[in-house]
């Protein structure tokens, strides 16, 4: 939430993150090359590059897709989420290397321009029903890779916070949901491409396992969310709803509760309980899963700050979360179900645990 944009807001943590990323990507790439060379010494450098970059990119995509749900289950994965966009941009560049070299290797020699050659069924015999039965090996798999590349490009190109602000959070988020389309397109690309000639059963097994793990993680995370949304409402009095026991909100920590279909974040600071909207102004992160750092509510995703008493980001920042009125009565937290107008100060409610 810098007031003046910078190309990359690097800090110590992000530098460490990026360094680790580069080292791991290089390791995967080199191991893939090593294994390929062990399996066959005839493989050319171009082929190694084409396949190595593709496999590394696809692996990275699996990591990217796994981080979100993992961080919902275990806060130890949050540091991975913190700089996920750098994973995405790295993946795009790997995919770009693969696409460019594959296009040059397989399409540059013809008399049709390479791009047209990639996008059309550039061979007369590229017909899945050419000789009677259905032949997946004749399915034009490359346009699927190209379509995925376009999506990955749009996501990488709009990963800077400038875009979040200037495209609007809704449009930006919708655009970035495109990652699922890209994943689908890529599995088709690989299934009808590489898997038609690559016979080792390890390939489809690993791909299938990847799908099951990613889908399973997302399913489990969705169930957890749904359980929260279905949480039963407590008693209601003068517009206040009983949401939990005060002892369930620990000092310096947050807790997410439901109030009439809205998620609200409760925080306890110096024996007072405060309530704000749970939706971070940055990318909609779950504020209530964060903690209080230096007196400010800190979003678990990328660390944006809000003051507990009025929901305002500390100056010079301007983001504001709605606050909610709170009453703590006999060890129970009662929450006013309607939010206050933006910027309203609430003193919070004193907890008497003793």
């Amino acid at each position: 939430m810098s007031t003046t944009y910078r190309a990359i807001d690097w800090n110590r943590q992000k530098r460490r993150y990026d360094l680790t990323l580069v080292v791991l990507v290089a390791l995967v790439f080199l191991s893939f090359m090593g294994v390929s060379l062990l399996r066959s010494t005839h493989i050319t450098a171009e082929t190694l590059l084409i396949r190595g970059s593709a496999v590394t990119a696809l692996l990275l995509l699996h990591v990217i897709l796994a981080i979100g749900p993992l961080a919902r289950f275990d806060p130890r994965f949050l540091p991975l989420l913190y700089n996920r966009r750098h994973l995405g941009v790295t993946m795009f560049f790997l995919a770009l290397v693969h696409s460019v070299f594959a296009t040059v290797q397989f399409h540059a020699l013809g008399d049709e321009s390479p791009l047209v050659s990639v996008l059309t069924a550039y061979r007369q015999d590229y017909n899945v029903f050419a000789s009677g039965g259905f032949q997946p090996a004749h399915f034009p798999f490359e346009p699927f890779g190209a379509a995925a590349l376009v999506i990955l490009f749009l996501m990488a190109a709009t990963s800077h916070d400038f875009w979040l602000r200037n495209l609007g959070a809704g449009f930006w988020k919708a655009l970035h949901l495109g990652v699922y389309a890209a994943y689908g397109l890529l599995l088709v690309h690989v299934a009808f491409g590489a898997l038609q000639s690559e016979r080792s059963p390890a390939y489809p097994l690993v791909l299938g396992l990847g799908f099951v793990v990613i889908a399973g993680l997302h399913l489990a995370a969705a169930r957890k969310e749904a359980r929260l949304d279905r949480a039963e409402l407590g008693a209601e009095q003068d517009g206040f709803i009983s949401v939990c026991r005060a002892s369930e909100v620990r000092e310096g920590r947050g807790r997410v509760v439901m109030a009439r279909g809205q998620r609200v974040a409760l925080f306890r600071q110096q024996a007072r309980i405060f309530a704000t909207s749970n939706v971070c102004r940055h990318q909609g992160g779950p504020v209530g899963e964060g903690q209080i750092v230096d007196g400010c509510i800190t979003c678990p995703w990328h660390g944006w700050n809000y003051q507990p008493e009025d929901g305002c980001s500390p100056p010079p920042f301007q983001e504001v979360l709605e606050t909610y009125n709170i009453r703590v009565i006999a060890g129970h937290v009662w929450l006013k179900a309607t939010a206050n107008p933006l910027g309203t100060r609430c003193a919070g409610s004193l907890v008497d645990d003793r």
Partner: protein
Amino acid sequence: MVEFVHASLLAIQAYGTLGLVFALAFHWRGLSRLDQGSRGAGLGFRWVITPGVVALWPWLAVRCWRTKQVGSFAEGPHASAAPGRLRAAHGLAWKALAVLLPLAVGVALWWRPIDPSSGDVTESLPRTAAPGSPDASLPPQPHQPETQRSH
């Protein structure tokens, strides 16, 4: 099909060229008017957003135009995505993937040609020769048998 792709690529080229021209104008005047945060931002930031400006210029053009109409339009600090709708879209995406992907990959694997060497065919990688290249007349996969599994 080839004509259609030619035409589409031409359209994309035109769109991109317009995008480049727009990007120049945008960096010259539009950017600092559209978003306060870009005032005083360095060259690195401008480079980082340029691919997106070229790709999404109509959106920015509308924003710039509306900013002129109503003063300031850059998304206020109070806007945020509707998390409920987003979760719904997310769920829908996974439902679609859960059905389509196993189906597609299943089809690709079930009907794939029987492997004649039943061993390593890594060397057969360059199976997509470009038209007009010397080996374009060869079948796409020299090792591929004529016989298909019959289902």
